């Protein structure tokens, strides 16, 4: 199917999300749509799927203009969409989700479950995407849920498949599976639109890349010719540093010390087992690992949000359990939580209010019991400027921002404090290249200013780019930390549960940091 968008324009109050966008997707290609958060990628695709109506412009399929007044029209026109937030009913089975809206029925409107199961099984075999038709969706891992979304579109015989940030929720092996599936769909003669802000993924899978910046198409590139650097510069609109520039660390006294941490869940299974970790002034310790191996629990323990069942956590020698949370937050712990929507922001409140969440009653934001709105607004405007938060104004609600911009709000609040310890979990999740560059730079600045930094990330590149020492979590146990440099594949193997002694030989772990002088750090980048 050949798709053409001509002059698509969509305005929201205060912003032009799409500004006369022209886009052409030809038969049997994977068309990459690259752009930063808030560049208008999702808006454009929602227009194409009939969820939004364009203010101007037209959509042509195989040369003839079409009206898409709702998803039903888009489906009828052969367009399918894999949404960033899956459009799956969690309590339904795989087959029920796939056939919803086009159910197979017996006389009287009764569902024909076995026919639906068979159809789903047949579909899944035909496309090489194995699923269990009678599994309940909410019990499936995210990668499989996404597969159900894809099958749902294919069941409706989609000839053009839109994948909106499909890799954002996937682990690296799941992403590889997805790419394989995408390639095979293309070879079937279908067209795919692949949305992502990750350069590497575009170069790996796209046949052609269109770059969207601030609502406009600013260029089209051939992934075989364009370098990551060129794409990044095009996307952000200025030269970007893809490599984190940092000097060897000058680590000082131990700030955070965890000893023998153990936590068990309600069922009695261990979440953390005997974790020892020390982070010193002026160093970045990064914890790598596939998500769900206990990182969240570790972060909760070292930020005082959860008391360990055994062991202790001390901050500059004081036990965290003896300190109230307010004192911890104001007394030098900065925390960028993993789930910003749940723990990092109050969605309905404005950016300005979110930026003073933990200092709202302190000078200069409050004075004699009254909020100082002018100061709060000025503070917010500065942060919006400094962190490049894309928003109509600092009075906009945080919940209405795109994910990356929400993350910038959290980062702005936590980094602006005078921190002894900075704990950042997935600090650049869902954040675009330009902002990643900035956040990474700020993390290094924090370190250089004498803060002890603990990063938890499932992005191996991020771990390697930032870490002075690397630890790996697997099944609630912590391996390391090990001094950098360390081989990327060695970390990968440990993330899969390999014994560090087998990989690294007799290289010692350094739970308290190197005892001798600071190692020279090789600025090797992969």
């Amino acid at each position, binding site marked *: 199917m050949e798709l053409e968008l001509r002059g698509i324009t969509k305005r929201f109050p205060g912003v032009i999300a799409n500004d006369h966008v022209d886009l052409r997707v030809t038969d049997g290609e994977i068309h990459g749509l690259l752009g930063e958060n808030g560049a208008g990628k999702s808006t454009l695709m*929602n227009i194409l*799927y009939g*969820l*939004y*109506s364009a203010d101007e412009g037209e959509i042509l399929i195989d040369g003839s203009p079409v009206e898409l007044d*709702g*998803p*039903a029209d888009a*489906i009828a026109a052969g367009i399918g*969409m894999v*949404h960033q937030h*899956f*459009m*799956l*009913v*969690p*309590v*339904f089975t795989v087959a*029920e*989700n796939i056939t*919803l*809206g*086009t*159910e197979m*029925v017996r006389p*009287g*409107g*009764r*569902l024909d479950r076995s026919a639906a199961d068979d159809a789903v099984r047949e579909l899944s075999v035909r496309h090489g995407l194995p699923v269990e038709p009678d599994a309940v969706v909410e019990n499936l891992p995210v990668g499989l849920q996404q597969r159900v979304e894809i099958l*749902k579109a294919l069941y*409706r015989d989609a000839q053009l498949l839109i994948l909106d940030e499909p890799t954002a929720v996937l682990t690296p092996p799941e992403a590889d599976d997805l790419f394989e599936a995408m390639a095979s769909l293309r070879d079937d003669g279908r067209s795919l639109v692949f949305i992502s802000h990750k350069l590497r993924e575009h170069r790996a899978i796209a046949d052609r890349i269109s770059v969207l910046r601030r609502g406009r198409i600013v260029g089209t590139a051939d992934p075989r010719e364009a370098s990551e650097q060129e794409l990044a510069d095009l996307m952000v609109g200025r030269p970007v540093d893809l490599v984190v520039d940092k000097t060897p660390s000058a680590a000082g006294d131990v700030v955070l010390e965890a000893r023998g941490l153990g936590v068990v869940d*309600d*069922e009695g299974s261990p979440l953390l087992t005997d974790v020892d970790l020390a982070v010193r002034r002026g160093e970045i310790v990064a914890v790598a690992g596939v998500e769900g191996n206990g990182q969240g629990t570790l972060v909760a323990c070292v930020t005082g949000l959860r008391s360990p069942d055994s062991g202790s956590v001390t901050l500059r020698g004081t036990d965290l359990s003896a300190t109230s949370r307010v004192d911890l937050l104001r007394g030098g712990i900065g925390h960028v939580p993993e789930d910003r929507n749940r723990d990092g922001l109050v969605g309905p409140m404005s950016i300005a209010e979110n930026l003073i969440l933990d200092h709202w009653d302190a000078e200069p934001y409050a004075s004699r019991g009254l909020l100082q709105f002018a100061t709060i607004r000025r503070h917010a405007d500065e942060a919006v400027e400094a962190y490049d938060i894309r928003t109509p104004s600092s009075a906009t609600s945080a919940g209405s921002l795109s994910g990356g911009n929400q993350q910038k709000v959290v980062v702005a609040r936590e980094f602006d404090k005078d921190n002894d310890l900075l704990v950042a979990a997935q600090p650049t999740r869902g954040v675009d290249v330009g902002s990643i560059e900035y956040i990474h730079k700020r993390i290094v600045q924090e370190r250089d200013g004498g803060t002890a930094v603990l990063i938890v990330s499932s992005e191996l590149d991020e771990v390697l780019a930032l870490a002075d020492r690397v630890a790996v979590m697997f099944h609630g146990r912590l391996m390391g930390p090990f001094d950098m440099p360390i081989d990327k594949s060695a970390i990968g193997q440990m993330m899969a549960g390999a014994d560090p002694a087998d990989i690294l030989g007799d290289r010692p772990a350094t739970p308290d940091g190197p005892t001798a002088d600071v190692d020279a750090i090789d600025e090797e980048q992969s």
Partner: protein
Amino acid sequence: MNPHVTRSRRFGVVAAVLGALVIGFFALPNAGVITEVSLESRLAGADGSRIGSIDVPILVVTLLIGLAVLALAALLLTVRLPDHVNVVGGAAVGLFVVAFLLWAARGDTLFAVDLARLSLRSAVPLTLGALAGVLCERAAVVNIAIEGQLLAGAFTAVVVASVTASPMAGAGAGILGGVVIAAMLGLLSIKFSTDQIVAGVVLIVFAAGLTSFLASQWLSTSPEMNSPATFSAVEIAGLSSIPVLGPILFDQSLLVYATLVAVVGLQVAIFRTRWGLRLRAVGEHPKAADTVGINVSRTRWLAVLAGGVLAGLGGAFLSIDAASSFTEDMSAGKGFIALAAMLAGRYNPRGAFGAAMLFGLAEASARALQGFDVGIPSQLLLAIPYVVTIIVVSGLIGRLRIPGASGQHYATE
């Protein structure tokens, strides 16, 4: 602590206390005391069989019941059955009520068949109200206005059944009364995205106020408008002469049969038909339903109006079947007990009916107990259904899986 386990334990403890009460209070002090349990109906017309009555030794039977309750308690305390805590707990409460009745009727006659008959009849408005709630909730519209729908239905049914002298016309009018309130709920919550709890409260107050006003200003001066033709029992030939079961199940009014059909029909419709799948999809994840071309607001409207049909019928039952006139606030909180039945039944028609039967048993028992000397003022006895409701609501419901989008407005851009 896992909430399922906690809830199961809490109920285990309650059941253990009930079991101990049965044994210590009803069974042991009453060695040699007899309750005559009549298996014939004084109420039903059928008299095909004469099996008379049984003399029940209280000690033995209540001891057995007490042990059964203790066994259920042990089950709750030791075995993990997250999906069946409600059923097991409900059975324990039900058994306790039965033991209580046997004890209260000691030395006298307990009309067991009539009690069962009455339980079922008492459960009818609760069931219909609960089904209305299930329908709305499954589409993610919170309907707490059931009380108002019952009242409106009861009022319109009485007037039309009085004027036309036809109970069927009255039932039709009752349906209309329920649907009018449902339409107002739909308008407020689906179209104007009002907070659904507030909308429900407003509609209850509206229906209660309007029917009270009309009853006192109009029905009291025109009593001919408040003398309806009522439903009477219709025997199902052949089945009604079955001993015990016949008078309970097959010698009832049309509205009772309609209720039983509605329970079975909705159970099938919600879980086994295309319409039901779409209804649940709209209630769980309206946007997902929208993106596959399901019309979310039409589905919700249909569910809310169908709920109005059922609740209106429940109202008609109150005024032209259970009673033969309209009295102010005659629903007496049944709409709220119906909500409790809906929750205890976990949004399933079958479960809601089971819970309604438990509440119906409590209500029928309260009336039966007035005939015995139990040393409790009859006004307090009449509070039993509400006490049972509070117990069930506070404990049985516990952690409930509510429809994903419950109470949330949905609008497309």
